[in-house]
Each structure stands twice: as structure tokens, then as C-alpha cells.
């Protein structure tokens, strides 16, 4: 959510084993994690006293272990490998001797909001400096030990070598002395030249994989604290609703149930407040679930109880058919439309979506008078500190947040409502409490990706060139989750593939229409790029067909000459994912290169030549999160049945710090995009979600997964986003392929409303 601040860390800490243990607080504290948690790694950052003026990203142990803090949350993107491998490379540490330690929530790290495909692009330079700083201090320690000029000392492969004499010392041997060296300032640091990289740009194996395949990896749901209670919460089914009546007598009789507690809620805007609910607390999860089933309760009525997702989408489609609020204007789109030789219109829609992380959210809390400790699968531990602190009436820094591994995040776990629940319940019961969300809870009480509708109109001149382009969108803004009155898509949501639409059309206009919120709206992997790219990439394909052109040639012409452009216009200021346009311009040359390579994966000739085989290819290219991604999809459509045969991804993500994790993110994005395009649909009736589990909110299964490939374009541009940008072009590439294969144009997602899935 547009957090721009990044605290560039300038210092670095090197601490001895003894000091490390002391700082880690390993001997103190009344809380001991269960012995069944061998994968648990102590987070030791907050044990550091402020007056040491050190920043702990790196420490070296006398046994040669280099501990590197990962301050960002691991949710499958590989960040616990990606950032530490950058540090290790710069400091000449050997990867086999690196231990990755998860950082606690602590603002001294800078932003920990693991969201927006930001971790590498925001911290690549910082991590390099951390590594270079550590290397410099080790070299200086060696120089001091040998009484030689530091220029004669060189760190290489976990040792410092004295070049003239050939003698050397291990990092471990130098650790104590290195910790006493002056922390070098940024300006004096010498970063490695790219040709000397050992790990950056290499497929370093994922740090946590061995733990993940042996059951040792610890996720939020796995936390075990002595004496803890487990809570399951029945929540208000409709936004704004509050508990009216409660009869908990039967629930309290269930063996194992210890307490039933109310959580106040029904607050609007919903922010990250817990929903109104009743928690059943028990000594095991089964008992708490049984107790919850035995609750008898009723909820108050709210205006949102009229909300019906199907009719809402129809309303949005109606609204986008009429003139809206103008956001950007180039030339005179309306006049050019009137003068056009041929006009085309299309309206698209997409439903609400849920994150459905494989791990339902979970948090464990121990609240005390003067502080609270949290163990949870969260994308933003500092946000947890702030919101739990507010809920408990404590300053944020009194909230200690241990970040576990996340069993998927996709944006859901950056909303700490579930952590606030755990903290409040711990305060009420005086015991550690783990809140366990079930799959039904997860589907019923998400922060949903917004339902949407978009209208497009294009005018073609007599040569088939696009002379005018109008686009208008409506969806409830994420802003409604945070502030009252939000009833149009916000500029930050138009930044995501709508107002930055890259086509060089003289007369073009971008508008929004009204859409109010009736549920908690949140960001989901690639956010409004999902519906924005679906509309833009679908309509461009429709216009290409209407013009009788090959989609590749048509798109190349539509994108126009190589250029770097600023989508800002008038009052609309393009945020560019929080980055400068100097460093990360909107670069049509890169988009076009991705387009050419994507088209080369496909056979688009059948598209231009008519269709009869029942098989067809579709392509879509899209820039998001500062990266450029193209998807080529081949489908077969026969007798109303759809089969996805192949899917190929081409991406330009700038420097790929870990190409294997870039590839896996793109594979994952294709599967995520397939799920949402083919079958993703959250339905709301009378204000409540009517889906409940994977039988009615299905995800793609292995037998539905097509053969895939990923091509990463070699680049020396700065590393850009990876986790999200693969998703947006997937849906339009599929619907474009369906059109090529069958002549059927699907404009309303999901696809299984129109075709049976093979």
C-alpha cells in the first residue's frame, strides 16, 4: 500500500558468539517454545540494545557460521534465500556456512511490509552494502591482526588472505576482532563488479527446502507455546454486523473447552479490526471446533445485508456504460470516436476473489500487562506491532513479533486482523492463545479482491488504425477498508495497469465509475492489475481481430515507437510502484521485446486466418511491479469443453537475483492466474459469502495444469518485481486463445461460467 519510506541502513553489526547469545536472549524469558519445533530459528534482532548503534543483518560466529538476518517474510517467493544470497556474495561468505535468521518486527530494519513485489527491488542495494561492509570489517580485522596495510588483505571464500605473504585466516577466527572495527560509511564501500558475483544471478537452492520436505518447517498454524489455549471464532457473516444474542451453555460442556469469549466488532471502516465474534477456547483444536458448533447466536442486521454479488456486477456493468469521472485525457477521444470509420465496444467483468492460502491464517499471542509477544504468519510484523499495540493500549515497541514461515500469503497475511484477535483473547484469558482459522473462516472472512466491470470503446479509421480509445472502470476501492466514503477506484489502483496503459493512441481517455464497498476489500497478488490487464489485453485482441490483423503486429503498432513515458497527466500522478521513473521507467522497448518473444512461443497465424481446428493460441503482455511479462497460451475448445494445452511465460524482471526462484514465481503466477481465470469466483448473497471450502471455491489441480515454460530475458537493469507481475496477463491470454480456437469471446470471468473445464 504505497509505503514509500525505506530506511537505508548504513551500519552493520558483527558480534561474537558470546555476544550473539546474549543479544539473542536465548537464556532469558519465561516462554519456551515447544520441543517439537526443531525448525524454529531464534529471532534475535530486538535483543540488541539501542546504544550499540549497530544494525544486525550480519553476524559471524567463531565457528565460521555467518548468520544473516532476513527481515522480510517468507511466503514461498524465496526471500529467505534471495536477500541473504546477496549479502553472502558481497561479503565473500560461503553459502554452506550461512545461517538465515528471521528478523523480528523492528522498524530499524526499514519496511518489512512484504507486499507489492518489493523485497528485492527495495533491499538489493542495501543488502549489497551490508555484505560489503562486513567484508571490509573482516579485512580490516585481518590487517590489524597481521599489522599489514588493509589494501593487502582480501576476503575470498570465507577467509581473508594476505596477498603478499599468502597467509590467511578464516572469518570465524577474525570474528571477534572484526566486531571491534569501525563500521565503514556507505561512500567508502567497494561493491563487487558483476563479473565477480558468485551467488547473485545464480540459482542458489532455497534455504528452507530441507525443512519443508521433512516436516520441520514451522508455520503460523504450527506454533506451540506451553500452556496455550486454542481458539476458534464464530464471526459475523456480514460486514458491520454485531453479536445480538449468545447462548454458550452447550459449548461450555464440551470436554476440553475452557472459556467462551466475545470479541467486539462490527466497526466501519473495517481496517484491521477483528470482526464481531464469539471465541471458543479449548485445550485442543478439535474441542474448540466442537464447542463452536454448539454455540447458539444471532447477529444484528446491517445495510450490507442487501449485498448480492451477481446483481452488484450487473450494476457495475451498467454504471461503466455511462460517462464517468475523467482521470486522464489525451486528444479528444469522444470526437475521434464520432469521426471513426468503425467503432467497437466491449464490457468486461470479474468477480470477487479470495486469497485461499494453503495455510489458513493463524496467530499466537501472549499478552501481559506491559507487553505482548506474538508468533504468527504475517507479511508485515511492524503493522502487527502497530495494530496489536492499539488494541491492547500499548506502544508498538512493546509488541514483540516473531514471524514464522507463511503457508502462502498473496496479500492476505498483511492484514493483521487475526493477530489482533489472538492478542485480545490472550489478554482476556491471561494465557497464551493460538487463534486457528479454518478453511471456512478463511473463505468467509477474507479481505476480498474487488469485483469489477470495465467498459472499452475504440474507433478505427478507414485504414484500420486505432484513432480513439476510451476505457472506464468500476470496482470497490481498497480505500473503503481504511476510510469512509470511498466509492470510486482510487488513483493508486489505476496505476496498476489502467491509467498507465501503454498504447500510443492520439485520442484516449481513462475514466472511473461509482462502486461502493459492502465487504472488506483487500489486495491480492497483483491487485487491480488483474481486472485492468484482463480488460486492456482482451480489448486490444478484440480490436486486432476487428482490424483483421495478427495480434502481435497489431500490438506492436499499438504500443508504438520505443519510448519511456510518464503516464501522469493533470491531477493524476502516476506512482510507479513507489519507485522513480528514472530508475524504473515505463519502457515500451522492453514491453515490445517481451511481446515479440511471447509471440514467438505461439502460432498466431491461425488467429489471423480464421479458426476451425478447435485449437488456438492467445497472447497477452503487461507491465506491472516494474517488470514486463508476456504469456502465450494454447487451448482446445470442443463441444463446449475447454482444455489448456500449453502455457509459456516470457519475463523481463531486470536482474534476476535468483533465476530459479524467478522461474518458480512465474510458474506459480501461471497457476494462480489459471485458478482465477478458469474458476475463481466468490459469491455473496444477502451480504454473506456463500462459498465455504475448496469444493465451491476450487483451485487448479495438478491434472488441469498445462505444460509450462518460463523464459527470463537476461538484463542488467535493476531488479524489479517478481512475485506478482506474472499473474495479470494470464487470464486475457486464455480468453484470447479461446477466441482464436472457437470464436467465442469470454468477457465475464470466470471462464467456467461459459465452458466446461476438462
Amino acid at each position, binding site marked *: 500500500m504505497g509505503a514509500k519510506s525505506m530506511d537505508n541502513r548504513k551500519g552493520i553489526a558483527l558480534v561474537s558468539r558470546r555476544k550473539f547469545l546474549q543479544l539473542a536472549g536465548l537464556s532469558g524469558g519465561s516462554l519456551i517454545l515447544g520441543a517439537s519445533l526443531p525448525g524454529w530459528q531464534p529471532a534475535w534482532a530486538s535483543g540488541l540494545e539501542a546504544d550499540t548503534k549497530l544494525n544486525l543483518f550480519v553476524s559471524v560466529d567463531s565457528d565460521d557460521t555467518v548468520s544473516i538476518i532476513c527481515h522480510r517474510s517468507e511466503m514461498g517467493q524465496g526471500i529467505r534465500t534471495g536477500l541473504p544470497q546477496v549479502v553472502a556474495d558481497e561479503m565473500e561468505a560461503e553459502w554452506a556456512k550461512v545461517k538465515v535468521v528471521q528478523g523480528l518486527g523492528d522498524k530499524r530494519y526499514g519496511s518489512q511490509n512484504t507486499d507489492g513485489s518489493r523485497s528485492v527491488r527495495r533491499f538489493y542495494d542495501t543488502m549489497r552494502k551490508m555484505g560489503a561492509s562486513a567484508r571490509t570489517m573482516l579485512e580490516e580485522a585481518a590487517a590489524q591482526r597481521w599489522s599489514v596495510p588493509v589494501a593487502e588483505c582480501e576476503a575470498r571464500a570465507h577467509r581473508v588472505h594476505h596477498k603478499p605473504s599468502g597467509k590467511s585466516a578464516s572469518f570465524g577466527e577474525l570474528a571477534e576482532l572484526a566486531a571491534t572495527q569501525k563500521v565503514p560509511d556507505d561512500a567508502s564501500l567497494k561493491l563487487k563488479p558483476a563479473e565477480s558475483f558468485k551467488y547473485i544471478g545464480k540459482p542458489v537452492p532455497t534455504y528452507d527446502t530441507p525443512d519443508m520436505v*521433512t516436516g520441520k518447517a514451522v508455520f503460523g498454524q504450527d506454533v506451540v507455546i506451553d500452556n496455550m489455549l*486454542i481458539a476458534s471464532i464464530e464471526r459475523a457473516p456480514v460486514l458491520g454486523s454485531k453479536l445480538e444474542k449468545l447462548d454458550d451453555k452447550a459449548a461450555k460442556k464440551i470436554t476440553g473447552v475452557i472459556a467462551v469469549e466475545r470479541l467486539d466488532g462490527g466497526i466501519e471502516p473495517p481496517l484491521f479490526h477483528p470482526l464481531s465474534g464469539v471465541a471458543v477456547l479449548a485445550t*485442543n*483444536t478439535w474441542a474448540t471446533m466442537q464447542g463452536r458448533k454448539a454455540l447458539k447466536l444471532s447477529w444484528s442486521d446491517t445495510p450490507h445485508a442487501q449485498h448480492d454479488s451477481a446483481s452488484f456486477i450487473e450494476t457495475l456493468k451498467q454504471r461503466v456504460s455511462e460517462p464517468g469521472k475523467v482521470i486522464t485525457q489525451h486528444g479528444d477521444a469522444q470526437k475521434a470516436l464520432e469521426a471513426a470509420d468503425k467503432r467497437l465496444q466491449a464490457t468486461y467483468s470479474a468477480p470477487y476473489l479470495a486469497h485461499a492460502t494453503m495455510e489458513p491464517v493463524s496467530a499466537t499471542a501472549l499478552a501481559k500487562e506491559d507487553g505482548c509477544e506474538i508468533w504468527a504468519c504475517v507479511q508485515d510484523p511492524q503493522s502487527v506491532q502497530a495494530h496489536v499495540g492499539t488494541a491492547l493500549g500499548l506502544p508498538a515497541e512493546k509488541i514483540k513479533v516473531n514471524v514464522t514461515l507463511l503457508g*502462502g500469503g498473496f496479500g492476505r497475511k498483511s492484514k493483521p486482523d487475526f493477530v489482533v484477535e489472538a492478542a485480545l483473547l490472550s489478554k482476556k484469558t491471561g494465557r497464551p492463545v493460538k487463534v486457528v482459522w479454518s*478453511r471456512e473462516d478463511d473463505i468467509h472472512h477474507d479481505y476480498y479482491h474487488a469485483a469489477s466491470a470495465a467498459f472499452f470503446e475504440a474507433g478505427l479509421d478507414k485504414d484500420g488504425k486505432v484513432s480513439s480509445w476510451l476505457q472506464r472502470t468500476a470496482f470497490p476501492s481498497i480505500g473503503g477498508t481504511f476510510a469512509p466514503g470511498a466509492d470510486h477506484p482510487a488513483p493508486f489502483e489505476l496505476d496498476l495497469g489502467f491509467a498507465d496503459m501503454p498504447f500510443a493512441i492520439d485520442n484516449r481517455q481513462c475514466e472511473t465509475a461509482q462502486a461502493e464497498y459492502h465487504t472488506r476489500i483487500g489486495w491480492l497478488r497483483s491487485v487491480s492489475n488483474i481486472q485492468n490487464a484482463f480488460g486492456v489485453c482482451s480489448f486490444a485482441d478484440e480490436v486486432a481481430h476487428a482490424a483483421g490483423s495478427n495480434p502481435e503486429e497489431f500490438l506492436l503498432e499499438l504500443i508504438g515507437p520505443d519510448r519511456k513515458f510518464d503516464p501522469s497527466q493533470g491531477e493524476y500522478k502516476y506512482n510507479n510502484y513507489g519507485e522513480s521513473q528514472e530508475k524504473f521507467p515505463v519502457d515500451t522497448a522492453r514491453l515490445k521485446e517481451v511481446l515479440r518473444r511471447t509471440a514467438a512461443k505461439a502460432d498466431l497465424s491461425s488467429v489471423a486466418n480464421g479458426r476451425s481446428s478447435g485449437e488456438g493460441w492467445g497472447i497477452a503482455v503487461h507491465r506491472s511491479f516494474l517488470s514486463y511479462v508476456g504469456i502465450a497460451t494454447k487451448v482446445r475448445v470442443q463441444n463446449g469443453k475447454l482444455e489448456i494445452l500449453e502455457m509459456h511465460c516470457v519475463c523481463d524482471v531486470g536482474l534476476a537475483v535468483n533465476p530459479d526462484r524467478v522461474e518458480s514465481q512465474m*510458474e*506459480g503466477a501461471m497457476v494462480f492466474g489459471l485458478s482465477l481465470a478458469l474458476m475463481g469466483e466468490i459469491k455473496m448473497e444477502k451480504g454473506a459469502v456463500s462459498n465455504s471450502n475448496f469444493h465451491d471455491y476450487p483451485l487448479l489441480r*495438478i491434472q488441469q495444469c498445462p505444460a509450462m515454460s518460463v523464459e527470463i530475458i537476461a538484463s542488467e537493469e535493476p531488479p524489479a518485481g517478481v512475485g506478482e507481475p506474472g499473474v495479470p496477463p494470464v487470464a486475457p491470454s486464455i480468453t484470447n486463445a479461446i477466441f482464436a480456437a472457437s470464436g467465442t469471446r469470454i468477457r465475464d470471468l470466470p471462464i467456467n461460467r461459459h465452458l466446461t473445464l476438462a
Partner: protein
Amino acid sequence: MELTVNGEKHQIDADENMPLLWALRDLLQLTGTKFGCGAGLCGACTVHADGMAIRACLTPVKAVAGQQITTIEGLSSAGDHPLQEAWIKHNVPQCGYCQAGQIMTAAAFLEKNPSPSEADINQAMSGNLCRCGTYPRIKAAIKDAAASHPGKGDEINGGEVNG
């Protein structure tokens, strides 16, 4: 009630209808077996009962009393089951949450069908969801494990071919 898990006998104090999943996770603190849906729809809780892959979230403990339960923690002593090695080689996991279930399903399946076709793999693994989208690598890893350990299933099953 007595449960035998990973070769060890445990006395548990539980309602006989408690699903095995919660007995493993809450009572024995074997948290490698995951809670994903509670309804047999995602496979994250897959364990073995006498060698057969079962969904622990739907299996009451009374149904497996007397059987040999194997969880991901007990699949191999050193994390070196051919599938675990193949998973590491192909760098399969992303978030990792579903992977124990994936591996347990695949392990039971490969015992029965040591040389599976692509269609066999699809069918066997169709009950295990992965939201991160590791399916292509899961397939590759299973094929690799099968190819690098031919006949392992035959030995264990006394040469019986069960495709």
C-alpha cells in the same frame, strides 16, 4: 487410546472421534502434518496408515488404532527418502505448506506404482492442492524419483505390480 506413529507407541487421552490430524498436531506435537481444509479436499494432512495414504483430517483416531501411522517426520530417518531428495533436487516447494502432504501421497503411490505414467501421476496427485503452483515441479520430481529408484516398490511389495 494407543496410537502407533512413526514406529513409536503413544498413549493419548482423546475423544475417539477426534480426527487423527488433531491428535498428531495438538497431542503429539507432530506439526509436519498440515491443516488445510478439514474436509478431505486439499490433501495437506496426508499421512500413511499401514502404508496407505489417508487424509488425517477426516480419519477419527479410533479408525486407525492398531495401525502403523507414518507422518512426514517418520517417512525417512534422515530426510533421504527418494522423493525428499527429488524434491530438493528440483527445488519443488515455494511456501512449503502443502508439500508434506504432496510427498506422503506420492510416497504411498510410488510404492504401488514404481514406474508411473504422466496420467498415473496426475490421477494419484489430483487430491493434493498447491496454491503456489508447484505442480510442474512435483511432476518432475516424482518422475525423477521413480526413474532413479526403479523397482523399489517391487521390493517392498514383494514384486507385486499394482498400477
